[in-house]
């Protein structure tokens, strides 16, 4: 694995961490005060910083560092996560995402913006404590030292520029260095990850004078020994002026895989050690140094608090004999001594952290190409299985043979394989929804509107290709909703609405499709304006009689924008028609319903997967067609008495006393020139996304089958009225009917017109 691959993994992890960060901040914004949420947010930033440091991404490190420092204040309850604070944090999360992208793809970030945020973050972090002047330079100057252990760093200090270097200076005057007691017990994981205790110890020895004692008691006899396990532990005492951070940084990458305790040696600790365990000489000087410090008021000056905490930690450890505890708990205990009120949640948080880490389901990263290849192969398998079944049935009149039974089982198996393979690609829509949160924030900022995004059902799963292609239209629609839909806060107040507008994004599964709804509580569609605009643009005749629904749907036409002034955000006239086309390209439908003064609801219905569908195989004018099963409400054999002529060419069919237009599929698709006799065919009652039912006339139903969708566009172009193609059991291509296109064609919009519109846009 070369460096680039490792880097790529880092960036993938960054994406996950950024998502975690954002969702955590949003939860905090919603009033969640669970310490675990704060910890999760902190961990996310810390992990990004740690990785970025390893790759020398200094910009990222320095920003993440400041961010982390401020988050740490929140974590240690020094900073109340108010809405104001979280606003800065959410913006910082955006900048962090930008910086990550820049680090990966090149380009540049808005330096002014990140500088401004760094200042804001620092201001927040220093809300109470006197601001150390060196903070701005500090992270950039010493990124390595500024990367302490994630959860260990509980003291809430502003690192690096103060504290131990200064402290060290003092010690130089006294000509003494503090001695640190380190208890280091590697777990098997440490070795399996390629770390090496010897190297860690060697690094440690560079910090100063060191004595090591290896504890081999745990070592079992040879025959009981697991060669991949870890049995040794070490007690180390180091005399160094580099400070605890330097020691921690030695263990930075090993920390999660070992029990590590670092404490400043004092009498209590020294007394615990027997000579046998640790042959070291306690140094009296460092105790005198420490003895001076604990008297200073905790929390007034950063250095003192830091020092006090370290001292408390040592004392607590010694007193409580928590020798086997992991370092998080040790430092939590130290805080317990310093800040008794915060002790309980912090300890709980530390435990939760451990649980969360172990409870996460194991996952692997797989190249998407491999999954796609597998899916293609399974698709071929399904086709082959169908072909085999068909030829067996043709050659075997006796339908009960063992071959037939075997084939049925094979069919079941192939279907199961297919479902499982499809499930691999299914992903929750969460990442896309999270991106929308950012979009909303940015647009709200630019437009000066106050917007709240509520997301629901973000764990709804859908095929990855659908998710990938969903982001763009959704962004467009959210922009439109905020820019055009919501009113300015003053206007909202005047209308008696909450000055904060609400945009609600919902995802749910409904009858084998995913339905995504985007609702705003804004002004709704101004139908008079839309109508006027459509007339101005020659989209409709001036005297056209349109229903409200039809007017609303005019916004999906190419080159339609009602914004009075063209803004940066939307209103470039490439808005909703592009959205509609990209949704249609996914095999989806989009619909709008709007209530003037109360907002608009956009409803998108998308297939869960772009690879297979359940279809009804029908015959129309000698051609075999597949009608998606999801569209069919019921099938019926029309009786002559139920067919009524309506006007010159229309015919209606009465179904349980309601009349439904009959649509001859063969005519619409130009497969025949005269209308078929409805009594000789079968009617498929379909419900279209645009609302309303239609009875599609076909000649006969052949059966019901799961078919693999094959793109027509791959080698040809879009064909109006046809959604895609598939390959049937006989090896021939059958076309999949685009029910909605056929229905809208039956409403008098010729199929060809729609293509020309699409082509024009």
């Amino acid at each position, binding site marked *: 694995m070369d460096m680039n691959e490792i880097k790529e993994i880092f960036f993938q992890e960054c994406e996950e961490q950024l998502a975690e960060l954002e969702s955590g901040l949003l939860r905090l914004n919603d009033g969640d005060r669970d310490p675990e949420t704060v910890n999760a947010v902190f961990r996310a930033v810390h992990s990004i910083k740690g990785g970025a440091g390893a790759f020398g991404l200094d910009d990222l490190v320095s920003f993440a560092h400041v961010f982390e420092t401020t988050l740490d204040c929140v974590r240690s309850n020094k900073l109340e996560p108010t809405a104001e604070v979280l606003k800065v944090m959410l913006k910082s999360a955006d900048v962090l995402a930008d910086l990550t992208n820049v680090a990966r793809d090149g380009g540049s970030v808005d330096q002014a913006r990140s500088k401004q945020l760094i200042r804001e973050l620092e201001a927040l972090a220093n809300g109470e404590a006197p601001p150390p002047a060196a903070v701005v330079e500090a992270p950039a100057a010493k990124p390595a030292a500024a990367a302490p252990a994630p959860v260990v760093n509980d003291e809430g200090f502003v690192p690096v520029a103060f504290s131990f270097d200064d402290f060290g200076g003092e010690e130089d005057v006294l000509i003494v260095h503090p001695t640190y007691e380190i208890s280091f017990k590697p777990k098997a994981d440490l070795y399996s990850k390629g770390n090496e205790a010897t190297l860690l110890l060697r690094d440690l020895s560079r910090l100063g004078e060191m004595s090591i004692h290896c504890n081999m008691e745990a070592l079992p006899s040879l025959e009981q020994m697991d060669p991949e396990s870890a049995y040794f532990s070490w007690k180390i005492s180091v005399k160094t002026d580099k400070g605890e951070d330097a020691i921690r940084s030695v263990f930075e990458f090993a920390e999660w895989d070992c029990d590590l305790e670092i404490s400043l040696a004092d009498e209590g600790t020294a007394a615990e050690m027997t000579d046998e365990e640790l042959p070291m000489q306690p140094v009296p000087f460092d105790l005198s140094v420490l003895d001076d410090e604990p008297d200073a008021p905790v929390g007034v000056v950063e250095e003192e608090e830091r020092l006090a905490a370290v001292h408390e930690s040592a004392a607590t450890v010694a007193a409580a004999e928590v020798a086997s505890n992991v370092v998080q708990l040790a430092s939590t205990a130290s805080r317990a001594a310093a800040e008794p009120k915060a002790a309980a949640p912090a300890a709980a948080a530390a435990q939760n952290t451990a649980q969360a880490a172990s409870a996460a389901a194991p996952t692997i990263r797989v190249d998407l190409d491999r999954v796609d290849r597998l899916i293609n192969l399974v698709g071929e398998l399904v086709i082959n299985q169908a072909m085999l079944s068909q030829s067996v049935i043709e050659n075997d009149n006796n339908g009960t043979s063992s071959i037939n039974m075997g084939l049925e089982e094979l069919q079941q198996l192939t279907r199961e394989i297919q479902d499982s393979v499809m499930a691999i690609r299914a992903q929750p829509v969460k990442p896309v929804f999270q991106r929308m949160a950012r979009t909303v924030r940015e647009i709200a900022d630019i437009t000066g509107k106050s917007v709240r995004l509520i997301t629901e059902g973000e764990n709804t799963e859908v095929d990855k290709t659908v998710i990938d292609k969903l982001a763009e239209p959704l962004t467009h629609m959210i922009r439109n909703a905020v820019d055009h839909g919501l009113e300015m806060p003053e206007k909202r107040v005047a209308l008696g609405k909450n000055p904060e507008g609400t945009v609600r994004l919902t995802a749910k599964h409904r009858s084998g499709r995913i339905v995504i709804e985007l609702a705003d509580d804004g002004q709704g569609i101004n139908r008079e304006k839309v109508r006027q605009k459509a007339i101005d643009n020659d989209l409709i005749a001036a005297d056209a009689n349109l229903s409200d629904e039809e007017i609303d749907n005019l916004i999906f036409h190419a080159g339609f924008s009602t914004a009075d002034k063209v803004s940066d955000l939307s209103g470039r006239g490439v808005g909703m028609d592009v959205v509609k086309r990209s949704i249609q390209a996914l095999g989806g439908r989009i619909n709008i319903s709007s209530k003037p003064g109360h907002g608009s609801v956009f409803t998108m219905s998308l297939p869960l997967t772009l690879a297979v569908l359940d279809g009804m195989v029908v015959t129309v004018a000698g*051609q*075999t067609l597949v009608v998606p099963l999801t569209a069919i409400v019921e099938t019926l054999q029309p009786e002559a008495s139920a067919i009524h002529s309506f006007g010159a060419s229309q015919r209606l069919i009465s179904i349980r006393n309601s009349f439904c237009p009959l649509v001859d599929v063969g005519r619409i698709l130009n497969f025949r020139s005269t209308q078929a006799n409805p009594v000789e065919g079968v009617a498929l009652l379909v419900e279209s996304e645009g609302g309303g039912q239609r009875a599609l006339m076909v000649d006969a139903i052949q059966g019901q089958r799961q078919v693999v969708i*094959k*793109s*027509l*566009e791959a080698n040809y172009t879009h*064909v109006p009225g046809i959604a895609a193609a598939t*390959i049937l059991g006989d090896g021939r291509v059958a*076309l999949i009917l685009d029910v909605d296109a056929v229905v809208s064609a039956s409403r008098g919009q010729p199929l*060809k017109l729609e293509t020309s519109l699409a082509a024009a846009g």
Partner: protein
Amino acid sequence: MTYLAKNLTNGGRELIAFRIGDQEFCVNIMSVREIRGWTPATAMPHTPSYMLGVINLRGAVLPIIDLSARLGMRPTEPTVRHVIIVAQVRDKVVGLLVEAVSDILTVTDDNIQPTPDISNDFERAYARGVLAIEGRMICLIELEAIFSHLESEAA
């Protein structure tokens, strides 16, 4: 500078010659993926008359074009003796229905004469030269020019 001058190298190159009606055409062998027999195609609605439909080519949906009709000549009545030339045109793969594949030619630039000065724009658009081989005349055509619409419609 003509297309020919730009695209032909000095070395020889291979062309596939095929028959449509009483005329012979050829295309660059590099654009031909395979040659197969005629199988009935699934008709598609609202397509030009030269578009015969689609067939299954090992799992891919392959559009079949009646090259004769596409070139403005008489539409072909496909029989089992007709063949389909599977060709790559830009990023798409299409099947061309022709009467028969007649030859594989190795030619150099010198063998290719410029297209005679004819009035018909359409013929000029796809013809890239003519070859005189053993008393026959074979017209070199450029598939990209014939199917330029494939791309624009898809865009």
